[in-house]
């Protein structure tokens, strides 16, 4: 169990532990690594590399692998990383946001602390994961499930080979039903990618406000153990 942590018995929402978790949750290395790896992947694929390019596809696959590992960790990892420690509860999230705003507005009440994500953070985590999973899955649909190596081979043909061979490969993929749904997948992929960035910006703002209200930097435990 993480330092300063209390057992969790509830199933509907993280239980607050006022005044008992002065340091907040201690995130294990896998949570910290996956958090920043996802951040780097999103920034790279959204801002830096060319959509549909080899790097974009490689990073998309890496993102899918990171999500898979993190989801498995949600079942077998330490208590603060488990899904049962931060089940989504929109009503608790709203209550937490109201308490946060009251605190920031000068109210002297003590803001509840949680052994894992607070209820607002929990809702944000699930929303981000849902959008990231959607981006990854629609990316797979758009590429017909082609691996990054296959994508690189296709790009090599585009740059130096005979394009008619691509038509043949695409017709074969269509016959197998792999190419179906490319248009809708592209639309959903773009909308979900935009939503990921919007949610990430709200997440950053939330962390800044919560840090201010609690009087400690919440980014630090996501960077190092103590």
């Amino acid at each position: 169990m993480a330092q300063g942590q209390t057992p969790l018995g509830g199933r509907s929402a993280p239980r607050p532990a006022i005044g008992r978790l002065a340091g907040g949750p201690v995130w294990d290395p896998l949570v910290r690594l996956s958090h920043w790896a996802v951040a780097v992947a999103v920034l790279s694929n959204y801002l830096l590399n060319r959509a549909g390019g080899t790097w974009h596809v490689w990073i998309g696959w890496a993102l899918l692998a990171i999500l898979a590992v993190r989801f498995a960790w949600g079942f077998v990892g330490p208590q603060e990383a488990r899904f049962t420690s931060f089940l989504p509860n929109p009503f608790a999230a709203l209550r937490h946001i109201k308490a946060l705003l009251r605190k920031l507005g000068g109210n002297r009440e003590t803001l509840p602390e949680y052994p894992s994500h607070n209820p607002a953070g929990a809702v944000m985590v699930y929303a981000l994961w849902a959008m990231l999973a959607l981006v990854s899955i629609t990316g797979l649909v758009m590429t017909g499930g082609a691996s990054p190596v296959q994508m690189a081979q296709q790009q090599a043909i585009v740059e130096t080979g005979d394009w008619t061979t691509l038509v043949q490969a695409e017709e074969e993929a269509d016959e197998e039903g792999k190419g179906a749904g490319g248009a809708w997948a592209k639309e959903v992929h773009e909308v979900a990618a935009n939503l990921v960035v919007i949610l990430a910006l709200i997440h950053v703002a939330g962390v800044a406000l919560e840090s201010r209200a609690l009087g400690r930097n919440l980014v630090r435990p996501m960077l190092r153990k103590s």
Partner: protein
Amino acid sequence: MKKTFLIAAMICAPFAAMAMPVVGDVVGTNAADATAALVAKGCAVTAFEAEDGSIEAQCTDEAMKVWEVYIDPKTGAVTEVKDEAE
């Protein structure tokens, strides 16, 4: 002489801009042929990529405006020409 040249250049400029690839032009079914054909039509290719069953050629005209030229990989014909900024 300079003035005459300048006036001639100004008159010809719009026509030069029109010498871009247009839908229906056959530019080839490989990068080398398509690059040569697009350059001949006034658009210097910077990249090719496959997109939605087409080949997208990114090219720059003499005014340094970037265009996306979509090519049917089966026939080598231009199917769409788009301003990259739009």
